[in-house]
């Protein structure tokens, strides 16, 4: 039987050998996991569940990552107490990959960068955007804290084999169009529940030409179509990325020719316009030309979707020599300390500060309405993040638009939603 990427990776991890036939969509398989992730919001519940389970020890202290990124630097007493609890747990269990403070960053940018997740891995995380690692060819999916606690105790979890929707992307990406636009288009086509219980698999010449960072951006938002995973083949680019992250022994991986897909979407990006997701769902996608001129109070450049170095380069190129509009707060949060340092080295930080941006720490911050840029009633933001649900960034009466870093930077300068070419 020809297998999809999802089936191949699950097969390589089953706790007892299975035939291809046992991997039909809908079948339930028990698998070993290579990495188990939780953050400052979800780890406290996982720890509580582990204690209820009576588990004395985690299955492997090198295969658990605890990243304090959502409400850190600790925004208030309650969040500080939560982080303290996780820190104590990490000490008690001798967890090697505990990140808080100067070595912490947004988890889904941090783990691939550190080589803790990589090609062919099976990863579960108590965070819905765990699917990001599909960009480097890992089958990675979000679960709740208690499922993740069971994974921490046992080193395994059960998975329902998903059907796969294939997205084939052809043509050459125009300037100011990137991975973000490919995934917004996909979500617009499928709707926010179109890939429910399913995996997405991306291929085609535009995907081959795309950087690993661009692929991570696409995989990141698979969940916004309801997807269980967003997967990419492992090619020379992926292997170079994994190697640079300090990993060894990774190999190329692709779906079998003739694998069965639930359906195939095709997109030619040649004449594509940048896209914007309008309030209050990521599926409300429109070309930027249709929403230009809408005033905004805040622009956010960062997050696990678009807070990597490539994104900052794109934004800085637009901001260079220009000024952020007086009516806009433009907040830039490089997603990890390493990205911060690189942006500093390349002069991007100086460009951004000169333009009048607020440079913030490597934190989730306002992405989920935690801190560092909360919206008041009636305010409007454009963000490079991944969710624009009502109330996501603050007041229930605020609005969030989602777009790529070039549009975000142009919007910060103009004060209204804008294309960089129109500045």
């Amino acid at each position: 039987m020809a297998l999809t990427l999802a089936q191949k990776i699950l097969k390589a991890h089953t706790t007892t050998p299975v035939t291809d036939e046992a991997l039909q969509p809908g079948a339930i398989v028990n698998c070993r996991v290579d990495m188990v992730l939780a953050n400052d919001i979800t780890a406290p519940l996982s720890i509580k569940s582990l204690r209820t389970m009576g588990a004395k020890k985690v299955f492997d202290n090198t295969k658990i990552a605890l990243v304090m990124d959502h409400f850190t630097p600790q925004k208030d007493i309650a969040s500080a107490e939560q982080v303290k609890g996780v820190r104590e747990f990490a000490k008690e269990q001798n967890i090697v990959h505990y990140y808080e403070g100067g070595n912490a960053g947004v988890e889904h940018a941090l783990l691939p960068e550190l080589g803790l997740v990589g090609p062919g891995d099976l990863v579960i995380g108590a965070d819905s955007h765990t699917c990001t690692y599909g960009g480097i060819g890992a089958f990675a999916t979000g679960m709740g804290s208690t499922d993740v606690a069971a994974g921490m105790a046992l080193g395994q979890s059960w998975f329902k084999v998903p059907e796969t929707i294939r997205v084939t992307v052809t043509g050459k990406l125009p300037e100011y169009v990137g991975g973000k636009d490919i995934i917004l288009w996909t979500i617009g086509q499928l709707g926010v529940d179109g890939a429910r219980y399913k995996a997405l698999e991306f291929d085609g010449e535009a995907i081959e030409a795309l950087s690993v960072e661009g692929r991570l951006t696409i995989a990141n938002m698979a969940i916004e179509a309801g997807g269980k995973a967003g997967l990419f083949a492992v090619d020379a680019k992926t292997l170079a990325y994994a190697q640079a992250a300090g990993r060894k022994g990774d190999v190329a991986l692709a779906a079998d020719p003739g694998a069965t897909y639930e359906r195939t979407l095709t997109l030619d990006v040649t004449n594509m316009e940048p896209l914007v997701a309008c309030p209050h769902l990521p599926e409300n996608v429109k070309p930027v030309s249709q929403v230009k001129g809408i005033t905004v109070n805040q622009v956010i450049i960062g997050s696990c979707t678009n807070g990597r170095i490539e994104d900052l380069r794109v934004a800085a190129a637009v901001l260079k020599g220009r000024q952020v509009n007086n009516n806009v707060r433009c907040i830039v949060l490089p997603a990890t300390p390493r990205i911060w340092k690189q942006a500093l080295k390349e002069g991007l930080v100086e460009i951004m500060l000169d333009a009048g941006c607020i440079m913030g720490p490597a934190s989730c911050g306002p992405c989920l309405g935690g801190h560092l840029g909360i919206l008041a009633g009636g305010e409007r933001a454009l963000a490079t993040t991944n969710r624009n649900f009502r109330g996501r960034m603050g007041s229930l009466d605020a609005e969030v638009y989602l777009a790529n870093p070039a549009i975000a930077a142009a919007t910060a300068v103009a004060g209204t939603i804008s294309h960089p070419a129109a500045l």
Partner: protein
Amino acid sequence: MKYNGKTLCVGDHIDTDAIIPARFLVTTDPVELGSHCMEGLDPEWIKQVKPNATFLVAGRNFGCGSSREHAPVAIVGAGIPVVIAHSYARIFYRNAFNMGLIPLEIGDEVENIKPGDELEIDMTAGTIANKTSGKVITFPPLPEAMAAILNAGGLAEYVKKQLNA
């Protein structure tokens, strides 16, 4: 097991930020989380809930968005034992069982349930009797593995029993 109560209805694509906004995620206490249940939809919503006598009825893709287990915890904490929906987002569905919340998935039949209807849910018989309209909706029995998790009181208790077995 039977449950009786009146319905409170919400729409499609109710996300976890609506069920429990992120600013309340600085605790894991069910009662505290329950007091903010649905605050991201309507800050007054919780006032209509009568503990153990209210069912939450939703449209498509209930619980989409984040993986926060605090969402089903908040619903249980508010005293709502059962949610009925057209369909659920994957992570929420899995979390609901793990947290001891019963998520019934009934597709288009959900249109036969209106706000304020009085229901009797019989888990053994697999029926939702709508006493207001007189209609009876049937649902398939829960998968065995899921029923075992619910019966144990959630996944943590379930794994505990497994570890002690």
